[in-house]
């Protein structure tokens, strides 16, 4: 899985009917060294109620269809968790809400 930051949302009325009612969020990859945004934004489907500014975990490929909400749906990036904190090499590198 990868971590990303939610920076916005997409509205699409003319879309595949299987995507009906799905929340389409814009995420940008996070560099795990600095926890800064790195790379270009992409569209994800939210299954856990993520909001703008939150660091999330997402999964791609066919596994993006492994959640109940995205089974057999034309999705290749699904948000499967909102990150509270991250420890790497014994150091806390991220804490949700901490400035």
């Amino acid at each position, binding site marked *: 899985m990868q971590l990303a930051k939610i*920076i916005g949302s*997409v509205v699409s009325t*003319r*879309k*595949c009917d299987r995507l009906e009612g799905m929340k389409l969020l814009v995420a940008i990859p996070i560099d795990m060294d600095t926890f800064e945004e790195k790379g270009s934004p992409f569209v994800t489907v939210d299954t856990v109620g993520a909001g703008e500014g939150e660091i999330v975990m997402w999964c791609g490929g*066919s596994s993006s269809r492994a959640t109940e909400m995205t089974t057999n749906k034309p999705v290749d*990036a699904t948000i499967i968790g909102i990150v509270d904190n991250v420890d790497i090499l014994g150091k806390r590198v991220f804490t949700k809400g901490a400035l």
Partner: protein
Amino acid sequence: MIVGRVTGNVVSSNKSEKLRNAKLLIVQTVDLSTMEMKEDYQVMVDDVGAGVGDLVFGAYGSSSRQSDTSRQFASDYTIYGIIDSVDLRGRRTYDKAEEENPCNWQKSSEV
């Protein structure tokens, strides 16, 4: 899912039986934070009636065959939505309704 601008199409009469009736569009990736089109081209099967100039999103790999109409195609990238608007960091950064000339890359003489 990738976001891109439909900038053209592909016609292939001699093609796999599994692509019959597939509408093949050229999509150039767009960086949503700058709305700039990249020199990165994909041939994608259209599943929602997208046309040249539309900002679209699509799914890759096995997810590109996850709708009743696109299941039949030998595709690894399929367009599944035409984008109406995008909000980034609390600001509307793209609005299809307000876009006067989405095909501004075409020289005026050709339009």
